[in-house]
């Protein structure tokens, strides 16, 4: 692979195709949001759902039963929007990490970011910070994510150079360390708090309110825009760090910014939903097939793909065995993994790198 090839994927067919894929994802996402808002434990007729949503447009007013309005507007829609934002965050940070580490195995789960964010969140819950401000949980998760990523990165960096294999190995070690630290906390806390934490760690979107959306939306958007701003640098870094440097990319600086943004986005997502695996790993691989390795397209497409997967997974989790509610993480893994393996079997070169 040479530089000419990277340049080729800018304009032309690839661009038209990427645009089409992103447009399709947007349409599917909009449809899945409507579907997920309309369906749930309590049956609300579709036209009522529509009227309730239209009621939010200033100047319009339709009469709908108050109970339906509460269920759709206060209970279901914020949950669906949270699923969308968390999925977007996991998808885009997964894509960025795979590019940044130049490794198809990289995902927030694997390099320690998720475990660090969990550690931060568990501390915040254990120490009761969540009672003071809704921002303290994501802030603590972000700091945990940043700490974990920083430790991983520092361990693997010598004389200004970061060895990717060492970095992954360090990430797995740091992950294990934080997971064990969480388990250690289990032994010293109240039964009630323990159950809350276990409940939260298993990944869960129940009870999400507009407040959570208010916290999640600006952080995920800011972090995503930040990641996207580095998409050209990510493209060049795919070649090799030496070539990237010779092309004028300040590799170490870029890595530091990418770590910061990935921690921000993942920390926000984990603090709201707990651990939801596989989205960050699988979605970027599927979309790399569709839009190619250019991060300018791959990052937003992976975000949208992650959002679509999680909105649908949460819908399935809520409705498949109602009133029993599954963990959305179970569904993302049960649906996502077979689909991923199907693609892998169909195209052995699925992990088509650049």
């Amino acid at each position, binding site marked *: 692979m040479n530089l000419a090839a990277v340049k080729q994927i800018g304009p032309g067919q690839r661009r038209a195709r990427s645009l089409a894929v992103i447009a399709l994802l947007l349409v599917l996402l909009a449809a899945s949001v409507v579907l997920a808002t309309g369906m749930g434990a309590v049956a609300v007729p579709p036209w009522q759902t529509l009227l309730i949503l239209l009621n939010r447009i200033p100047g319009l007013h339709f009469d709908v039963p108050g109970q339906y309005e509460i*269920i759709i507007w206060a*209970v279901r829609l914020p949950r669906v929007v949270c699923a969308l934002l968390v999925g977007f965050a996991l998808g885009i940070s997964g894509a960025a990490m795979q590019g940044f580490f130049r490794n198809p195995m990289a995902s927030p789960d694997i390099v320690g970011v998720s475990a660090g964010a969990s550690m931060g969140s568990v501390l915040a819950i254990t120490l009761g910070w969540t009672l003071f401000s809704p921002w303290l949980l994501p802030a603590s998760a972000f700091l945990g994510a940043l700490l974990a990523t920083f430790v991983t990165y520092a361990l693997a960096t010598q004389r200004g150079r970061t060895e990717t294999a060492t970095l992954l190995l360090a990430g797995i070690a740091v992950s294990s360390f934080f997971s064990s630290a969480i388990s250690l906390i289990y032994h010293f806390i109240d039964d*009630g708090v323990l*159950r*809350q934490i276990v*409940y939260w760690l298993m990944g*869960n979107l*129940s*009870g999400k*309110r507009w407040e959570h959306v208010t916290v999640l939306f600006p952080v995920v958007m800011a972090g995503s825009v930040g990641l996207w701003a580095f998409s050209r640098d990510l493209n060049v870094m795919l070649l090799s760090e030496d070539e990237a440097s010779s092309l004028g990319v300040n590799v170490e600086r870029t890595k530091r910014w990418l770590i910061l943004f990935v921690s921000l986005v993942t920390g926000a997502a984990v603090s709201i939903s707990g651990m939801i695996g596989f989205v960050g790993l699988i979605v970027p691989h599927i979309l790399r097939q569709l839009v190619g390795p250019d991060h300018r397209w791959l990052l937003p497409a992976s975000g949208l793909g992650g959002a679509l997967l999680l909105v649908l997974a949460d819908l399935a989790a809520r409705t498949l065995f109602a009133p029993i509610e599954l963990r959305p993480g179970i569904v993302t893994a049960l649906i996502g993994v077979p689909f991923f393996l199907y693609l892998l079997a169909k195209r052995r070169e699925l992990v088509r790198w650049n």
Partner: protein
Amino acid sequence: MNRTPLRPAVLFVVVSLLASLACGATGLAFPRTVVDGLGNEVHLETPPRRIFSTGLAMDNMVLTLVDPARVVGVTRFATDPAMGSYVADQVAPHMILVDALSPEYIVAADPDLVLVAVWNDPDSVEQVRRLGYPVYTFTDFNTVEDGLNNLLRLGELTGEEEAAAALVAEFRTRAGRISDLIADRPRPTVLYYNSWGSTVGSGTVLDDVIRYAGGINVVSAMGIEGWPQIDYELILHTNPEVIITDSGEAFVEQLKGDPLLASVAAVQSGKVYHIDHTDALDHRIILAIEQLAEVLHAEVFAGAAQ
């Protein structure tokens, strides 16, 4: 056997309910404000008539204390005696069955009192609270007294304090009877062990059960608290005279036949027992206490039954 069934308690509830309905006295001291274990105030203008319970412990209590017509939702576990429900016959078709606290179902049932336990998902609890439903959180389930206290609190919330007090009084009478019968008896050492490899130390309902039944819990005697997992070394070291479990008769046989435990006093004398009702979290824990007392002090109970 000197055991009174729980029926009189149920009868008492029904009678007192009818009596209170008859003279319209249920609302005697309403409006009232009750403070829950988290310090949240629950204000009730009238006795709640649409109660939603989101945990089996509360299902068991609420369906014992109040007319099922006043309950709009319980957990699906309440329908199944095998899951630890004592009130399966009180679950009525009009009730919504949930797996756990789920805001959508709460809104659909439009309750005037929601009972939650401290381990319910905090986000869901907060959402229900913000939607304006009165939420009462039960926080303590760690001792027999916690269970009795929860029952009294629920009585206060529902306006059924007399029925709750009667159930607690019945517990104390029956526990007192055991205490009298075994007053002069030596206290055997007891160890609880289940198929998860866990035991119980101090600060647990089962530690209380062993004490009420006239035994000494060797684990809490060592200063161990809570529900730790232990290995066989601790069983050999403490060498209890009796081992109890709630993991079933097959597990009892497994322990008795385990060559590693062959030297333990309880195994040598065959005093390994399965005890029922160990997961009762209210006045019904007396059933476990009575069952255990009868195996720990079989002689006096055999005499008392004649």
